[in-house]
């Protein structure tokens, strides 16, 4: 009798323990990656970001609707759709970095020690803030651009050496990009903590002129 009670007790404890251990492992696994466990601040940033992206898609949908209509009418009236094709080509050339561009934006000046991974992170952050075209000094950054470094402390964009102090220029919504770079806890703040002694300046620009990619994509 006594030994039976013992076995039952141990089995119950072991069973409970098993369930708890599995729950714990699952909880930890999900914990690191679940949206449910994000802080309200992170979720708010995420929502702002998603909402901005959705608005950009909505704008493009409106634009495409009117262009489709115009092209249809032009063909129906026997004019062909050359205007639409030209417009599309010019948009794609900007998107692919194949044409030199002008426009408003921001400049990030970096004076001091810096490295290729930080430059890649800065470009990533600018793209997230809606940059439409980016150049580092006089080297345009394209869809397939990569960042490296040379032995004599220059950085490279697609093998082209760019030397400090660096000017990273981005065409896009100046206010959105400026706030994204300079917000508390943002990338410039993080750089200032990591690269002590390096000077980072961000300024809004009304007119920037960026070159085309040095080597066009094929």
């Amino acid at each position, binding site marked *: 009798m006594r030994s039976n009670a013992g076995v039952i007790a141990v089995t119950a404890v072991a069973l409970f323990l098993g369930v708890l251990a599995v729950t*714990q492992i699952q909880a930890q696994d999900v914990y*690191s990656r679940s949206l449910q466990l994000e*802080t309200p601040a992170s979720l708010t940033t995420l929502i702002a970001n*998603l909402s901005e992206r959705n608005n950009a898609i909505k704008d493009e949908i409106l634009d495409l609707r009117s262009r489709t209509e115009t092209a249809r009418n032009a063909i129906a009236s026997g004019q*062909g759709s050359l205007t639409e094709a030209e417009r599309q080509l010019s948009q794609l050339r900007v998107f692919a970095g194949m044409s030199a561009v002008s426009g408003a934006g921001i400049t990030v000046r970096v004076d001091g020690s810096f490295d290729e991974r930080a430059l890649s992170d800065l470009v990533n952050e600018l793209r997230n803030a809606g940059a439409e075209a980016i150049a580092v000094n006089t080297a345009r950054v394209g869809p397939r651009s990569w960042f490296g470094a040379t032995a004599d402390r220059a950085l490279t964009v697609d093998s082209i050496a760019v030397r400090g102090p660096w000017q990273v220029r981005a065409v896009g919504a100046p206010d959105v990009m400026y706030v994204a770079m300079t917000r508390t806890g943002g990338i410039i703040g993080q750089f200032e903590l990591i690269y002590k002694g390096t000077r980072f300046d961000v300024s809004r620009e009304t007119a920037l002129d960026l070159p085309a990619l040095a080597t066009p994509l094929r």
Partner: protein
Amino acid sequence: MTATPSTDRTRLAHSLVLLVPAVLFGLLVSIQWRTQSDRNELTIRYNTPLLDAAKTLQNEQAALKLQLADLRAQLDKIQTSASTQTGASKELQAAIDRLKLVAGLTERAGDGVIITLDDARGASAAKDVEKSICHNTDLTDIVNQAWRGGAESIAVNDERIVGSSSIYCVGSTIMVNGTLMSPPFAVAVIGPQNELLATYDDPTQLRDIKQRRDVYGLGFRVSRATGLHLPPYRSALNVRYATPR
């Protein structure tokens, strides 16, 4: 009631059998408690409406991307039928098609490599959580390395990497082209296989990721892949401020 030596031994044995699970039980309960207490009251109060808002926006985005794809296809159809009319429009259409291909706006098939990146899952992960999980900077480093190795097209978990793509991190969630994703990540790369493998094998490159793989068990693997299919970029082109010169 006097206990005999044999019943004493049985009691002792029972107590010992229960002692180990009891200690483990206590340990697990305390870990569970600590995990729970990381979520403060503010998190619990505000997260539900915020989560709902995030999910609604994600669903809306999926629907918007479908509409966008549909409109692009309609416009393409009009353009293609019109381009059969004159020589000039034929040339323009050929240039458009070429640009779409290099800019990542068309589906792409070919051979290359697949890089997988995952949070550490084993016991070594407990040593340092920060170093055991994937960060967006790991993905930007892996993508940068692929372009360096001559990649022609890249997709991260089926999101095509184009000129406007960013790999963004909010808290512990990663977003590519507005799509939320979590590990494991598969970076599919179309390009010259030997050059790509060599660039990832180079011991001077991706040192941080390789060190975390060896010490903390971070999942990082590069393998040859044939017959890859990469989807086209499905989000907005976003050319509003930049005008060609």
